């Protein structure tokens, strides 16, 4: 156990690509945590996906032993946090385990939306914040301007910001010295009952469930019986350890320290993040203040492209859930797409990442429906329902009004793209709250309905600004909206997977776009196919696929009927993928293609 005064616990927060993980690598290297040979880029981003996309999804921790200029050796506990807004929940709980943060800002890019969002989270957590200007080796670096930005946009004193290049290694020691000098040491008592914050938990195939804890008071040792206060379950501690970043077992963790424990805990669900860990025989009276549980805000349905893969999908979701308890999934049955799951995610990126992990790690081909948000539907009988699946939409006559979630969004963008960005926000029913300029860049703050944002807003934002706009948001409130459910009918029968809840003002355009797209995808049939978009009983758009004009092989088969019959038998096998709508059969692939085009 380390003396409290020689411990510093810190997080690194930054906008994506500003060099957070590279700095972490440098810090580890400087402190000798890994030899040159063991070092590979972004050691903390262990998931293949994290490394490839350059983002951090799960928080990671590492203990660094730093011999400071004052001659003493400090234990620096670093928690690497996800940068993206979707994971702000993970960011906040990581922040709750430390006393300070390094705020990395790319000196050539300046303050971006996630810099702002994460800085506010750190301020809210009561952190001491050390601004760090990265990439000063780049010709485009403008450290002085960025310093001003930090002061003006965030309101932090940047006069003592540390200038570094994580790439070349310049300034790394200055960062370490700043940590020692400027961050407060943790507080806590060693000789009082155990009180530790459960920061994170995950499933390790070799160790079982691993819990990451921050000791506030007391100590945790191997063999100790502990109790999780929220679940009120007791366990015997099997292992205590830290990551250096290699997993290293030690005898005990004392106050102010961060480390892991294993305790024959069966499921990740038994380790509620934010719970307080105490001693089973000498429990503390009150738990630490935990975190709000993470709630899914974006939903979509996932179906296996091949119906036979349903069980694989179920198993894969369950496995993934072991490590990421923040997404939800429930079985769902769609007439158009078969059996699948309705899934809830923390945000759009989270949704994308889960889908990609399913595809990559479990080799599943998936079909995803258009994303939806949670609507609060107030019924005429005075009751309310939360709804995220258009297929659960009640009869309109029973609805008094519908509330939809609104977000507060910060968009930071170079001047020249501002006009187009403001237009996009207006088109998406946005309300401007603020508009400020700092050094050639504008920051627009808007209130926007979340359902407008989940529908390709981010892609549009990126394409309009050629990738220069950054965007972050937080959920703000629910507000009444003029929302309708648009159904797509094929020859009068609804296609459940294509239903959507949209603002009335956008309903016709969205309905028409989908009808036009389907018209391209539905093959000609013996009968004409009417594709309609309807609200309740009212048709708002219609397209018709004409009946096929000729479909007969005029070739003479002689006596060889067998070949033709075998062709029919092949068609019979393909019929399983056909869905009957009135008198026509639509290949499931048409719906899949319609949904896929939604992505683009």
């Amino acid at each position, binding site marked *: 156990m380390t003396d409290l005064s020689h411990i510093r616990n810190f997080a690194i927060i930054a906008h994506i690509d500003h060099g957070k993980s590279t700095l972490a690598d440098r810090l580890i290297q400087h402190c000798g945590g890994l030899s040159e040979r063991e070092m590979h880029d972004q050691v903390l981003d262990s998931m293949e996906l994290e490394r490839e996309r350059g983002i951090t999804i799960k928080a990671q921790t590492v203990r660094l032993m730093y011999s400071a200029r004052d001659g003493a050796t400090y234990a620096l506990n670093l928690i690497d946090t996800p940068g993206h807004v979707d994971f702000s929940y993970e960011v906040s709980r990581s922040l709750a385990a430390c006393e300070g943060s390094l705020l990395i800002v790319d000196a050539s890019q300046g303050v971006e939306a996630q810099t702002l969002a994460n800085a506010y989270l750190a301020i809210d957590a009561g952190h001491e914040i050390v601004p760090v200007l990265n990439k000063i080796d780049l010709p485009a670096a403008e450290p002085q301007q960025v310093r001003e930005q930090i002061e003006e946009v965030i309101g932090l004193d940047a006069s003592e910001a540390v200038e570094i290049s994580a790439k070349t290694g310049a300034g790394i020691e200055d960062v370490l010295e700043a940590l020692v000098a400027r961050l407060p040491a943790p507080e806590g008592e060693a000789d009082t009952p155990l009180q530790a914050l459960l920061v994170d938990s995950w499933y390790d195939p070799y160790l079982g469930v691993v819990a990451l804890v921050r000791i506030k008071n007391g100590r945790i040792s191997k063999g100790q019986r502990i109790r999780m206060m929220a679940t009120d379950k007791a366990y015997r501690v099997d292992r205590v350890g830290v990551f250096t970043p290699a997993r290293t077992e030690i005898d005990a963790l004392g106050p102010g320290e961060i480390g892991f424990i294993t305790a024959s805990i069966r499921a990740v669900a038994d380790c509620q993040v934010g719970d307080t860990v105490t001693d089973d025989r000498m429990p503390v009276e009150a738990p630490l203040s935990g975190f709000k549980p993470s709630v899914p805000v974006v939903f979509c349905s996932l179906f296996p492209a091949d119906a036979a893969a349903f069980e694989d999908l179920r198993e894969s979701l369950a496995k993934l859930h072991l490590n990421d308890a923040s997404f939800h999934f429930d079985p769902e049955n769609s007439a158009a797409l078969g059996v699948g799951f309705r899934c809830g995610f923390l945000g759009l990126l989270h949704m994308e990442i889960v889908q990609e992990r399913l595809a990559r790690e479990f080799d599943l081909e998936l079909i995803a429906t258009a994303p939806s948000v949670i609507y609060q539907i107030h019924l005429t009988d005075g009751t309310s329902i939360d709804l995220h699946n258009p297929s659960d939409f009640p009869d309109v006559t029973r609805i008094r009004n519908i509330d939809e979630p609104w977000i507060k969004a910060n968009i930071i963008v170079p001047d020249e793209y501002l006009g187009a960005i403001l237009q996009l926000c207006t088109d998406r029913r946005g309300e401007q709250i603020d508009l400020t300029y700092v050094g050639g860049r504008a920051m627009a703050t808007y209130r926007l309905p979340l359902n407008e944002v989940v529908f390709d807003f981010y892609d549009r934002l990126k394409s309009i600004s050629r990738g220069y706009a950054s965007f972050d948001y937080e959920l703000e409130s629910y507000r009444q909206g003029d929302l309708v459910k648009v159904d797509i009918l094929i020859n009068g029968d609804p296609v459940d997977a294509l239903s959507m809840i949209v603002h009335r003002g956008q309903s016709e355009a969205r309905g028409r776009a989908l009808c036009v797209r389907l018209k391209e995808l539905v093959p000609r*049939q*013996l*009968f004409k196919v009417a594709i309609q978009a309807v609200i309740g009983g009212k048709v708002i758009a219609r397209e018709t696929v004409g*009946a*096929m*004009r*000729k*479909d*007969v*092989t*005029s*070739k*003479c*088969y*002689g*006596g*060889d*009927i*067998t070949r*033709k*019959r075998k062709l*029919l038998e092949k*068609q*019979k096998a393909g*019929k399983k993928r056909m869905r009957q709508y009135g*008198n026509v059969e639509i290949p499931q692939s048409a719906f899949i293609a319609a949904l896929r085009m939604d992505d683009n």
Partner: protein
Amino acid sequence: MAETIATPDTLAIYVHWPFCRSLCPYCDFNSHVSDHVDHARWRAALLRELEHYAELAGPRRVTSIFFGGGTPSLMAPDTAAAVIEAVAHHFILDEDIEITLEANPTSVESAHLAAFAGAGINRVSLGIQALDDAALAFLGRTHSAEEAITAIEVAAHTFERYSFDLIYARPGQSVDQWRRELEQAIGRTRGHISVYQLTVERGTPFYLAQARGDLVLPDDPVLAALFETTQEVLADAGMPAYEISNHAAPGQACRHNLAYWQYSDYAGIGPGAHGRITAAGRIHATRQHRAPEIWLHRVEDHGHATQTNEPLEPQSVVAELVLMGLRLRCGIDAANFRARAGMALDEAFDPVTLRRLEEGRLIVHNSDGLRATPSGRQRLDSVVAALVV
């Protein structure tokens, strides 16, 4: 459960001659080029396989013999004569028997038509394909338009009944061009003509050309217009379609092909030939070995080169009855369906599908039977798929 199928008293006989002088780039029939055909051995083998099928089929009245190919007009006429004699020996010949020979309209083959008539052939079907030299060259034919017309004249002079084939939907062919070609052809007919849409089949040079983008066939609206024009022009000329691609004046339909479409029994002799033969209460599908040399050796060693001979499941019989029967204008006769399928028409199909197709005016279903309307025949592949898939 389907009933047992009574063996019919009639039989049609198909004889396959697999050799051609050259191969056409669109053809996926069992055709081979060979300079060393031992006609005596082939004649003997055809006769041996015929004998085998005579034993299998039992006593029957033969209503038609069809020499197809390949190019059966390259056969020695006395081979045809020997086969016809052997059929007469093994079976009873119907007094109205139709004996057709497929022939290519080259001058060499035209010169042999009289000898074939002497052998007992009483109908020829000429592979004219087009009346335009450029189109003939594109189709890989070795004859000219002029030779084709001479061949038709020789056939008209030699045989009471003859027919010829045309292929339409060639690249760049317009509806007007096709109408003119068809009208020109009508003047050369005597009550029967077959018009086939050019289709590209796997394993042919055209397939490769199409895959490379070198061959572009007319698109769907043009195909439909060409088909509709064919129907209209030939009906106006007194030869309405009695089958999707076959047009005839009253009484001039090809009896042999009708046996296929009405799903009667037929024996297939020669390399790759198919047959449907009723035995022991079941309809059997037979197929002979495709490769000419292997076929020849097997027949010489075992008396036949049958590769498959398997009883068909009732559902397969229903599928085949529909596949073939709905191609005919008169459709499927209810009594014939019952006799061949061992079940009633009404039992064989999903009533909802039947009603849907009827409401769409694609089929007519009544106590007489089941038939496709002209609109249904034009979309027959989908209609059949709806019924039996």
